[in-house]
């Protein structure tokens, strides 16, 4: 894992340098036209970038969560989700438990944010909880934790800010040059005029090309990091099929996300705005085609390590270059079979006979049913998820003797509440005032 973080860091620095050069170029041309000094433009571009970077570093995480309408949940709200996140935290050796957020949206999706592994957060939609089983959910969480471990959450927001600054400056310059750029030329003498025109055209061309290049760099980095997080997920769970089947379910879901825009879309595990059934990675997509990602995970023959992922990656995409550093591929110790094989306990219909039960294990194809408590019917699962939403909003649950469950809103002031089914009155303890 360290090798990957290291190699990521080296490549990231290169990308950041290219982005910085673009930013400064655009800034100087911008300055040349608006304040008649390229130094002024450089300073302006730098100031905007610095301001946005500081904002993104310290507030980006909370901004993202707020824009997506995510609520923080506690362990009691959804113990299974909490446990899955903790399992992946352990597998990835994260220094701290990520915070968990729930987004009330029927479309299945998830994302991770956080400037460092100590302050990470993962957010999942209620649709994801309703659609996926435990193994699939584990795969998704592992992918998100992979983003955190590989420092993608920090890097993508930082490089995103640079992209944003380049695009913004170029946009302003382009519009003004098209519509009001004549003023400067008329003031200058005719001899310098020709050179000015050439500079103007060159500047204009730069303003058109620079944002494009910046965007292509950003998106290429984004796609690569999705593959990498998939590989990490396979390593953490030792079970690529979990993530593969989750990606399949998420990508074929016809439900569109509600609170999403082009800024937040690249953060999700599957881009909520990307068209379904794309099979090729285009220059302008934020994520690799889901079909490829699934196929790579499914054709990881004989293991779940980085080496197997890399081989599968090259087979499916037809690329000859290894996309992981050689030192990571050599890394031993990642073998299949560390994960328990799927075992279903056979329950004899006759009197329980211990010895038969223990040896009568049946190897099944996919799901681990062994001991894992999970609501079986879709209705029960949906109930569990919506309860988690209620609980995260501070509703209190009271179980009546008639088995009805009363959900009392947090701002309910009266001391008693009547059951709607049997009219029993339940006393409410006063809510402790939040201090």
């Amino acid at each position: 894992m360290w090798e990957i973080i290291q190699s990521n860091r080296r490549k990231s620095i290169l990308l950041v340098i290219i982005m910085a050069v673009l930013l400064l170029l655009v800034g100087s041309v911008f300055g040349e036209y608006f304040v008649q000094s390229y130094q002024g433009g450089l300073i302006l571009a730098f100031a905007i970038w610095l301001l946005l970077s500081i904002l993104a570093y310290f507030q980006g995480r909370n901004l993202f969560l707020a824009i997506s309408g995510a609520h923080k949940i506690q362990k009691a709200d959804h113990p299974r989700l909490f446990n899955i996140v903790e399992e992946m935290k352990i597998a990835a050796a994260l220094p701290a438990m990520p915070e968990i957020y729930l987004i009330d949206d029927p479309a299945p999706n998830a994302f991770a944010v956080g400037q460092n592994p100590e302050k990470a957060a993962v957010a999942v939609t209620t649709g994801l909880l309703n659609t996926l089983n435990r193994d699939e959910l584990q795969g998704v969480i592992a992918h998100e934790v992979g983003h955190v471990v590989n420092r993608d959450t920090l890097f993508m927001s930082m490089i995103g800010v640079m992209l944003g600054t380049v695009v913004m400056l170029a946009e302003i310059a382009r519009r003004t040059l098209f519509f009001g750029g004549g003023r400067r030329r008329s003031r200058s003498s005719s001899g310098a005029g020709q050179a000015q025109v050439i500079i103007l055209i060159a500047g204009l061309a730069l303003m058109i090309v620079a944002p494009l290049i910046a965007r292509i760099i950003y998106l290429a980095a984004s796609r690569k990091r999705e593959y990498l997080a998939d590989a990490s997920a396979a390593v953490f769970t030792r079970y690529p099929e979990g993530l593969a089947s989750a990606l399949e379910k998420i990508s074929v879901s016809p439900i569109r996300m509600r609170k999403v825009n082009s800024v937040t879309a690249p953060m999700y595990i599957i881009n909520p705005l990307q068209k379904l059934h794309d099979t090729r990675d285009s220059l302008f997509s934020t994520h690799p085609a889901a079909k490829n990602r699934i196929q790579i995970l499914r054709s990881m023959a004989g293991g779940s390590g980085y080496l197997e992922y890399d081989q599968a990656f090259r087979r499916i995409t037809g690329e000859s270059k290894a996309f992981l550093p050689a030192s990571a591929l050599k890394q031993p110790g990642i073998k299949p079979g560390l994960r328990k094989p799927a075992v279903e306990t056979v329950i004899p219909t006759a009197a329980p006979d211990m010895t038969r039960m223990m040896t009568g294990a049946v190897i099944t194809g996919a799901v681990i049913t062994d001991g894992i408590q999970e609501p079986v019917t879709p209705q029960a699962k949906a109930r569990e998820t919506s309860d988690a939403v209620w609980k995260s909003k501070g509703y209190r649950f009271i179980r009546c003797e008639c088995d009805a469950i009363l959900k009392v809103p947090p701002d309910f002031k009266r001391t008693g509440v009547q059951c709607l089914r049997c009219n029993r009155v339940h006393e409410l303890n006063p809510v402790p005032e939040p201090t």
Partner: protein
Amino acid sequence: MTYVLIFLVAIAVLIFWVFGLYNGLVRLRNAVKNAWSQIDVQLKRRHDLIPNLVETVKGYAAHEKETLARVISARNFAMNAAGPAEAGRAEGALSGALKSLFAVSEAYPDLKANQNFLALQEELTSTENKIAFSRQAYNDAVMRYNNMTEVVPSNIIAGMFNFKASEFFEIVIPEEKDVPKVSF
């Protein structure tokens, strides 16, 4: 004069290189220690959960005394185990005993509907997963550390400063070693 200088620089480079290798070994050894403490946390959590589980099951399936006794004795045995190898065997026996307890519980619908039991079952299953994942992380760390102590040239440093290879942690579940019978 220049030869002396070159010699001195070479010595300095060598010393820093040795420092680097030494520090690398220390870091890896600490990673192994940290990973082991993670396993310990999870094992302890499992030991703490078991009395609750036994109490809950007793209320519904009192005559499964034998299974319950097996779980309790496996827990006590596991709590007193020392070192990765012994702990591995003891925890394996405990996993086996727990599995049989959950299998038995299938025959008691009232027990299976009990909220407390369901919550405990999720907790224990997840703890089992966490043990497996922390074991996976521990073994990865041990592999990295052991490799470093064995490959040239860091093995020389490891030998000089007494970096010993670490033990892997394998949980041996008695039933899992047998070839499972497949029934159709």
